[in-house]
């Protein structure tokens, strides 16, 4: 890496500290792999409950990621491109789920969307029941994952600046056209990486789901909840499933990055 052209050389001590940091992240991963009972691996991860949990996790995380994009992109645009009183406070509040313990997030969601929650009147009116449903899982995942998308996209929006947008506007493009043809293509890589982070966070979501959605096979018991439950009776199964979760995450992140790289090049050709 240090010999590759175009890169400034990194001081050795930086390299040393970075190595320690990387080991700190990678070693626990290695520890999981070492613990896996490979003889039983395939039966453990193909049991009915495991497959149900994996499929449910993939499904809910995908929907949660879509929701994050649908709501997160406008939120990031408003935070990055407008100025209004109280904006800083609003940003801090929007990013709150990052620091909030997920279990507390789950309680907050319960107090909002639960049967006795803040929105119980309108929800009763339309006959909506969220508790103990797959919808509750998706809400919990969206709640914890949304800040990842807003944060990465807002940063990118500020970095690319408003020059191209201003030029496009002077050439007669309306706000929506500028957004569609200039702004979003410019920040597409950040959007993709933000969505990937959101997906990864949704996939690993545990505390808020447990508190808000409950745990029922095929309905609300996602892979992390299945791991938590299996650990009680069968640690081997828990470890095997944890490895599956990691593998799925790395696979999805890798695929999305491929897409992100292509998106970046097309954005580059545009500008």
């Amino acid at each position, binding site marked *: 890496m240090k010999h590759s052209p175009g890169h400034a050389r990194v001081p050795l001590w930086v390299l040393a500290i970075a190595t320690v940091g990387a080991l700190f992240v990678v070693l626990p991963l290695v520890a999981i792999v070492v613990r896996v009972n490979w003889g039983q691996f395939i039966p453990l991860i193909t049991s009915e409950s495991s497959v149900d949990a994996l499929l449910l996790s993939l499904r809910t995380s995908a929907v949660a990621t879509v929701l994050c994009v649908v709501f997160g992109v406008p939120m990031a645009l408003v935070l990055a491109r407008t100025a209004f009183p109280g904006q800083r406070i609003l940003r801090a509040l929007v990013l709150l789920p990052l620091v909030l313990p997920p279990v507390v997030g789950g309680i907050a969601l*319960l107090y909002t969307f*639960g049967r006795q929650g803040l929105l119980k009147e309108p929800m009763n009116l339309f006959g909506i029941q969220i508790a*103990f449903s797959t919808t509750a899982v998706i809400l919990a995942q969206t709640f914890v994952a949304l800040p990842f998308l807003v944060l990465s996209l807002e940063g990118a929006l500020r970095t690319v600046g408003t020059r191209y947008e201003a030029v496009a506007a002077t050439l007669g493009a309306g706000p929506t056209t500028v957004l569609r043809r200039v702004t979003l293509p410019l920040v597409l890589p950040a959007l993709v990486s933000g969505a990937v*982070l959101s997906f990864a966070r949704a996939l690993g979501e545990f505390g808020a789901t447990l508190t808000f959605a409950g745990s029922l096979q095929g309905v609300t018991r996602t892979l992390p909840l299945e791991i938590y439950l299996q650990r009680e*009776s069968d640690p081997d199964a828990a470890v095997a499933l*944890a490895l599956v979760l990691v593998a799925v*995450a790395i696979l999805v992140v890798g695929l999305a990055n491929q897409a992100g790289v292509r998106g970046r090049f097309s954005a580059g050709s545009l500008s």
Partner: protein
Amino acid sequence: MRTTARSFTLLLVAAAVVTGAAACSAGGSSAPGPQASGATSASTPTASRATAPEGTITVFAAASLKATFTQLGTEFETANPGTTVTFSFAGSSDLVTQITGGAPADVFASADTKNMTKLTDARLVSGTPVNFATNVLEIATPPGNPAGVTSFADLANPGVKTVICAPVVPCGAATVTIETATGVTIPAVSEESAVTDVLGKVSSGEADAGLVYVTDVQGAGDAVQGVPFDESGTAVNTYPIAALSATKSAGLAQAFVDYVTGTEGQAVLSAAGFGAP
């Protein structure tokens, strides 16, 4: 080049986000949890003697014993000046994992015989475990019992949102036993991994009913309402206690076990709703 490097960084970060959560939920299976080691390292016996009931011991006890054992610990310390009893409360299976992993515990009190057997099989128990309490299930409902649950059979009604423990945890195993004995099948809306999670769903009003232990209903106070049912006698959970062979304060550890199984201990347990062994 830069894009590739950045993609790789992102990949690592995203993997860390996922594994962080997964490791957090699976971590307890391989090593003593941070809470337990924090609670116990502060109380490592330094000047304890093996004979006289004096010094410091650490008691690992099932989560359902938190209220009673905290009280018993205080009373024991008062009755035996110069002693300190510290506790680590968690699910019995978590505690067993921690003890087999080398966590410094002197006494173990389990919520079921199955988990105690794991320790006796591993030859980590000194002497024979003594049963000191029993517990049975009870229906918990939100205050006012909105769904009008009066019997175990009522839980078979799909209109009653019932939350139970998953079969792999002790309270869930007891639930299955009662279902089998009565022929009543509960269409549960959620199968939780701990009694406290069941209780939380009920006290928040999210569920109409939950199956928890009698002592949980009593401990929750006004937050939930209890509906006892006769069939609960078909699944009686027995709580064993034992001094551990790794203890450096065998005398004190045994003294605490004797205290729990003696008159004072039994009175406190009985007042909390536990049955006699």
